């Protein structure tokens, strides 16, 4: 890994990463589906790790290209494990109470077909714009 020794270095790194991410997300025509699994202690305790692994193996098995990431707490303690699915061109959707069965439903119905499934957690906050 190269060291960041100046502001220019940091900016270059940032541009580089953002480009890579864009390519990942918009690489093919339809773009890639992004799946974020909330994996703070509470999420993991509720089974987020299994859900994460399920997405990892199943997406490969079923031949769906997804960008899978772990994140920290999304704040919906009452509905752990929670995941956020972003289908290109649509707003991100947060699903709560996701177990392996629900994950299967999300892949089959929402990711493949755009059909919503039960367990949507409406997002009710605003995040500060960072720049």
């Amino acid at each position, binding site marked *: 890994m*190269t060291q960041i020794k100046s502001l220019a270095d940091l900016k270059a790194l*940032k541009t580089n990463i953002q480009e890579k991410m864009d390519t990942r997300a918009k690489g093919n025509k339809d773009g890639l589906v992004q799946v974020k699994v909330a994996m703070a202690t509470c999420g993991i305790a509720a089974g987020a790790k299994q859900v994460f692994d399920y997405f990892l193996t199943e997406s490969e098995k079923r031949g769906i290209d997804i960008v899978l990431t772990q994140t*920290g*707490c999304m704040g919906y303690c009452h509905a752990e494990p929670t995941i956020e699915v972003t289908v290109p061109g649509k707003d991100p959707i947060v699903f709560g109470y996701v177990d392996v069965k629900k994950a299967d439903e999300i892949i089959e119905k929402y990711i493949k*077909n755009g059909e919503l499934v039960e367990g*949507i957690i*409406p997002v*009710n*906050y605003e995040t*500060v714009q960072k720049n």
Partner: protein
Amino acid sequence: MAKYKMHLLVCGGTGCSASASAQIVSNLNEELSKQGLNNDVQVILTGCFGFCEKGPIVKVMPDNTFYTEVKPEDAATIVAEHVIKGRKVTRLLYTDPENKERISDSKHMGFYKKQLRIALRNCGFIDPENIDEYVSNEGYAAIAKVLTEMTAEQVIDEVKRSGLRGRGGGGFPTGLKWEIASKNHADQKYVVCNADEGDPGAFMDRSILEGDPHSVIEAMTINGFAIGATKGLIYIRAEYPLAIHRLQVAIGQAREYGLLGKDIFGSGFDFDIELRYGAGAFVCGEETALIHSMEGLRGEPTFKPPFPAQSGYMQKPTNVNNVETYANIPIIILKGADWFSKIGTEKSKGTKVFALAGQINNVGLIEVPMGITLREVIYEIGGGIKNGRAFKAVQTGGPSGGCLTEKHLDTPIDYDNLIAAGSMMGSGGMVVMDDTSCMVSIAKFYLEFTVEESCGKCTPCRIGNKRLSEILDKITKGNGTMADLEALRNLAAVIKDTALCGLGQTSPNPVLSTLDNFGNEYLEHVRDKKCSAGVCKSLMKYVIDAEHCVGCTACARNCPVNAISGEKKMPHVINTELCIKCGACIERCKFNAISIK
């Protein structure tokens, strides 16, 4: 397979369900199938939108139309107008309470500004174990700015002007703290991150460290530059293994990028961070106790002054800030003090993260601007009280806080208002209680926690809190006297007045606030030997209603202590002297003839 063009999201939260959201779903589906649209439009029941006050809610996607106070009979209109003709049903749109305008797009609703994520800005968005994701979200841009464009004085000035106050509970102005530490000269200074989160049910700091560890690392580095410290320490409890792991990964990555270590950004400034593990003592969240614990000494507070800024870790000037405080720093540097100070109230700027818990529908981690009311938090974010029960109290500030009541619901939340109300901000625990909570028992619960967690150094906290909890125990057992109530108040006041550290000085708050706000409940326990919430077992009496009892003998047969007697087919009687209040009789009675009084 269907590819839906439109989704109708119907709120399935408890509040809305009570107002027939299921009926709305079925009516919508009926209307859609009548129109042959059920392959194009999907109706789905969702979790709580949190906006129960204006429920039931129907949200239309993809255009984000937000309908409030929808009735089942509105289904036809929504389908006919919005789904088919693409015209929004104006009368169902949310009206902005300020300018009375109807708002069609939920993204522009003030409601969504109820929660503003600043400290939690990256939590749940980025991969905490990947520094690149942090960097691509403006990460380390603040320290870059600080080291390449700013002087230490400018940094301190920015933090001072932002109005940021310590988020660990005390609410001391962060910039001022930095300034004091910067003015004390020494060959070595330290920056310490207090991650010894100990309030029962609180997990704000853990969530930040697990979700966004780099923001804390970046902030500590900024802090180090501002006060002239080259060493940072994070005091984290050992029972946070994931947070520790993510911090270790993050520190490793930051070092690899040269964002920690020697000559950061070529500025000549050196800074590095080490972790120190705490064994989980609540009192070690108090900064002097925390420092002693890090030094390998017994984790107990010492009297201030000297403040850590004068003589802290290893007797060197030390600045201690909490995790959430740090998480605010980079964004303040990036967006400026003016931006930050516009959020919040006059004396409490920015936002506060709360761990919302208790008898509330949307238990969760929330971040709200200072000045929001308790009512907004409980009813509009928290989704109201579980099972439609009545709100009774909200406890803020952890074990050192107080229980606030109905009359405080419209108080804007900030440091000073909460203290004035007899509670405190604390680190951000917020426990909502309904009418099944006995306030004497609640006070006892918190006191028992303080008794366990007191370091035992000073008399009022070591013995005083023990005695407080014993008196409370006596009252809940039905043995309290009016003199006990007097003693409770006097003792609580003396503890507050004489205890050595913040823990002891605030530990009587649960007692004092419940005495003030729920005095009748104490009286009821003492004078009438009654607990209306039905929590204090000793005060309960099991009674058989002769009118409903048919004399089936089921209760008598199942009573483990033979406390129930009566002739067959004749009303039975419970001998309260013998009754152990196990509840077996109530369970067996098919005629609802047994009740607790």
